[in-house]
């Protein structure tokens, strides 16, 4: 079998999803035999942006250098996978979007040249075409491993788009909203975390991203009312959605 050529790039993030890449190789050590990694600064010294089959990109795009890099990566990769909530939606750093960079941040920093950030925090697909999206803060390492194995075998995953509640119920986890009257973003959040937070008895805070294929502005408004009654202010809900679904949320807003 020809080796699958993979490159792993990190943009602005906590690097956590990179560790899930490493994890996927730990649980499938044989992957290393079928994969050749041409770029992965966290793991190796030799790094060149070469032609690859798959580029895995983690992190959000926050400056023009990163935009350039991402465009180069797109040119040289057959497939591009956005890995994690930062790459798919922007990530927690999106919470700063909307504040004036120049007057606040740059003014306070001794050498503005080193602060290379744009006012917006962009998802990968707002800069280049993306073939796979694996959200999650962090991405679910098992899902990533499944995808990598399938890519090595020459196929891909068949995406299923459903809410976290589906996973919750399949696992028989008690509903924190209905049983405990706690705010939970599960109903509007994309599945794939294994209904993690509810399984620990707490509400989901939406780290896998807003189920934007279903939840439009009106439905989000209805949902806001529900969580408000459960004790989460609109501001707080808005902040969570901005933190973990910035790209979707801004599309919703601009869609009017």
């Amino acid at each position, binding site marked *: 079998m020809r080796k699958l050529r993979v490159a792993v790039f990190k943009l602005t993030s906590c690097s956590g999803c990179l560790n899930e890449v490493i994890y996927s190789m730990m649980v*499938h050590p*044989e*992957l290393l*035999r*079928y994969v050749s990694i041409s770029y992965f600064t966290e793991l190796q010294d030799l790094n060149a942006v070469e032609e690859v089959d798959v580029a895995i990109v983690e992190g959000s795009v926050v400056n023009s250098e990163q935009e350039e890099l991402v465009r180069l990566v797109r040119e040289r990769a057959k497939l591009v996978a956005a890995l994690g909530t930062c790459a798919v939606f922007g990530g927690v750093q999106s919470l700063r979007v909307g504040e004036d960079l120049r007057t606040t941040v740059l003014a306070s920093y001794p050498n503005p040249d080193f602060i290379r950030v744009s006012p917006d925090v962009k998802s990968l697909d707002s800069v280049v075409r993306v073939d796979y999206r694996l959200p999650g803060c962090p991405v679910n390492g098992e899902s990533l491993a*499944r995808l990598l*194995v*399938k890519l*090595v*075998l020459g*196929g891909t995953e*068949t*995406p*299923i*788009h*459903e*809410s*976290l*509640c*589906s996973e919750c*119920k*399949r*696992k*028989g986890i*008690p*509903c924190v*909203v*209905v*049983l405990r*009257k706690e705010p*939970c973003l*599960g*109903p*509007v959040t994309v599945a794939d975390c294994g209904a993690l937070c509810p399984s620990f008895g707490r509400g989901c805070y939406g780290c896998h991203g807003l*189920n934007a*294929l*279903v*939840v439009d502005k*009106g*439905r989000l408004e*209805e*949902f806001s009312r*529900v969580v408000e009654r459960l004790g989460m202010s609109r501001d707080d809900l808005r902040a969570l959605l901005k933190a973990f679904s910035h790209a979707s949320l801004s599309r919703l807003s601009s869609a009017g």
Partner: protein
Amino acid sequence: MPMRYFAGDSSALGDLISILRGRGLAVLSYRLWGDLPVFGEVESLRDLSIGYSDVQGPASYRLVRDERGFFRHSYYSPKYALHPPIQDIYEASNGLRAVPARVDTAPMALFGIKPCDLAAIEVLDRVLESDDFYRARRSAVAYIVVEECVEPGDTCFCGSTGTGPAASGGFDVAYARLEGRVLFRAGSERGLRLLEELKLGEAPGDLVERYDEVMEEARRKSSRLPPLDAVIKALEDSAASEGFWREVSARCVGCANCNMVCPTCFCTEFIDSADLSGRARRQRQWFGCLSYTYGQVAGMHFRPELFMRYRHFVLHKFVFYQRQIGLPGCVGCGRCITWCPMGIDLGEVVSRVVSHGSG
């Protein structure tokens, strides 16, 4: 043959559990796990959720300690046992030679399930008639013991769907707890033999009379829907009205909780996985028609908008099931109302459809 009623007290329920267990059966019932109502194996009367009452409302479920209370159900239904949420289908390691997964067919008894649950099993029996995996689990059910609903919950409407509050068929034993007494009746020969083993006396006439009264009252309380015929007609008439369905589904967020808790929702999606040593596995798992992917194929989508999937859900329950299997797919258990985080009331929706039709 006139119906024979037997009377006992709650210890007879414990005895019944013992007899079933004595026959090597796993007895599955609603039980409490800490403070949570689950559906699982019980060993004795103590494990049953007797002495608790479930207070249900739209998006609200509370379990209260209440000696005289009545426990109905939770987000679990017998579906968890008969049509498991995640099921292995087969594994292939040697080329494509697929080996079917094993299904646990250890014999079991369903105990204390409610008439709506029983009706739901009948629906599943018909709609999954040619599903080997369902049939394997289903045929492991040796006995069904139903607890009739002397007190319907606030989200129940089995009186309207004709699936409760009394059990009408397909069970072995039915019992009703009436003010400290338990009234038993058999639904099958095997059930009758079980009751005989309990050595209960015939029920006194006044208890049977009381039973009839209580069930009648329960039926009245749980009949809050317009007549089923009217519902079906109104749903058919409204199907093409996009505006109406958009409006009716405006509060739905497509989370599919209703699908998951519905005791008759049977849809599944297949999941394929592979490893690099040449092994492949195929599984299936519950899948809700409210989820985005339902109706999607590569390159196009047959129900791209949520209102379409919501309409399918409602029409399927009341109209399409009827045509598919000759039974309504909604058994009036009210779970979809209780466990909808948005608190959408299917009963209310259906009433709106009817008044929309006549308006």
